[in-house]
């Protein structure tokens, strides 16, 4: 049974990690906690659902929805963060404006999609279980896991091997120096928001597929859990977010497996608290975004 539980943790953690990547990317580059991230996660899932409902094949619908999420990310920055950057408003004020945007996105989602839960496949998923020794999973779950891991590798590649990635890392390290060295700040920041929000949107779509359910409250729990993930892994660290995601997945799953389900959140945040106290930089704190 432990093997199955660890596999459960793997699937859970993959989505947490993908979500946290967006959080940590924006924090690493701008020192801002973007509380609209969970709202983008949610609305991307709805967008993918409605494209599928309109007849588009799933991969195309998902791709379009991910791009849409990225665009919303750029708009988010233009509307809620950039004006404050110009006025040197610090890091607390953007947090509040991101809350405002989150509320607006939620209101729009409710107006457009209503309060009912939507389903990618009506009548339930017909995913045939695959039995591999002591564990059972479905092909859909395997695809979701592979997609999540693929996106993480994609991000790592972009950051490590492209000009854009280098620029992002430079801005994360020292914004002023990067500007002096000729990096186009605003374009780099916009690109960062695009990537971060696209990843968040991807996480939302994968969550919607995994549970065949898209609802307004899709992001209600992951918003706070994402914080625990990035703390565990280290703020601004990509690898950290990934490890952190799986670590939180394991903490949660094992909590349930050992009968402590009611204390699950306390354990997750307890672990996070301990890391903050003992090693505030997180597990990978030394290797921050600056070195990806």
């Amino acid at each position, binding site marked *: 049974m432990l093997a199955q539980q660890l596999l459960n943790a793997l699937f859970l953690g993959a989505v947490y990690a993908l979500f946290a990547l967006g959080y940590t990317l924006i924090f690493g580059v701008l020192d801002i906690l973007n509380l609209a991230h969970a709202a983008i996660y949610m609305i991307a899932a709805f967008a993918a659902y409605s494209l599928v409902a309109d007849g588009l094949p799933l991969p195309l619908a998902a791709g379009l929805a991910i791009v849409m999420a990225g665009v919303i990310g750029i708009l988010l920055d233009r509307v809620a963060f950039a004006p404050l950057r110009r006025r040197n408003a610090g890091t607390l004020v953007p947090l509040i404006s991101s809350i405002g945007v989150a*509320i607006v996105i939620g209101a729009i989602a409710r107006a457009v999609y209503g309060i009912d839960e939507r389903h990618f496949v009506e009548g339930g998923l017909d995913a045939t279980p695959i039995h591999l020794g002591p564990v059972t999973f479905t092909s859909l779950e395997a695809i979701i896991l592979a997609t999540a891991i693929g996106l993480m590798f994609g991000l790592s590649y972009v950051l490590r091997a492209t000009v854009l990635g280098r620029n992002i890392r430079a801005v994360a390290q020292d914004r002023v120096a990067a500007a002096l060295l000729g990096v186009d700040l605003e374009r780099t920041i916009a690109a960062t928001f695009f990537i971060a929000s696209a990843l968040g949107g991807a996480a939302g779509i994968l969550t919607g597929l995994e549970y065949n359910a898209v609802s307004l409250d899709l992001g209600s729990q992951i918003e706070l859990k994402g914080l625990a993930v990035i703390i565990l892994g280290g*703020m601004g660290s990509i690898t950290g977010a990934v490890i952190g995601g799986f670590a939180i997945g394991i903490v949660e799953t094992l909590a349930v497996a050992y009968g402590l389900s009611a204390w699950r959140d306390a354990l997750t945040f307890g672990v996070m608290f301990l890391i903050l106290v003992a090693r505030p930089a997180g597990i990978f704190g030394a290797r921050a975004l600056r070195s990806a």
Partner: protein
Amino acid sequence: MNLGTFYAQHSRLIDQIGINALLALSLSVSLQAGQLALAQAAFAGIAAYVSAIAAMQFGFPLAAAIAVAIAAAALAAAALAYPVRKLRGIFLAIATIGFGEIVRVVANNVDITGGAEGLSGIPNDVTTPIIYGALLLVALALVALARTKFALAVKLTREDENAARGVGVDVGMVRFASLVIGGAIAGLAGALYAHAFYFLTPTDFGFARMEQILVWCVIGGVTSPAGAVVGAVLLSILPEVIRPLADYRELTSGLILLGVILFVPNGLSMLWAKRGV
């Protein structure tokens, strides 16, 4: 409509505003020291339950129950201050949010708090004059505090911790004191809430509430206690004022929040603050 009828129709909202103002002040104390310590809602929650249990299980009279509750909240703040002493900015915020979640889970899972079903039947003996009397006392105390050297130390700590240390400010003590004072005020607010609204659930003082308090303070002005109160008052009234908008309330409050913060990023207090402060 005369004052009496107005009160009869809005007394609950008036009480909520008073308590929210206290909560805003409790966070403002921390923010003025430059600490993004988001545990005030949890401290208020702890105090609310302690006060209720003291009154219901142990027969404490109101004043004693509130006193014990404030002490409990201050103690929790003191206990929290130690492990987070090295944390700054967003890290401190997240640590304190985590603390809040742990408190919520404990309240949900133990029997003495009534768990998820909630705690009902709390003696309903806190009235509007008591709430506003407490608010006035706290406001006066903070005004008095603002004239002391401590307040100067707080301001220096907020602006530049290293410089403050350089001129001899005990930054650790400033941070500790601001957290505990904030915790005590939050405790007062929580205890008053328990006896004014007679029913508690674990989510009453969870992250949603903490987020609300933070929004009040930032909208009002992070470094201005008066601003915090103004933020609390305006945003507490907002849902009722825009009630005629029905389906568009949610969208409107999001847009208002966004609009205010983009136009006056340093808070509404900038509208009346002296220039060059």
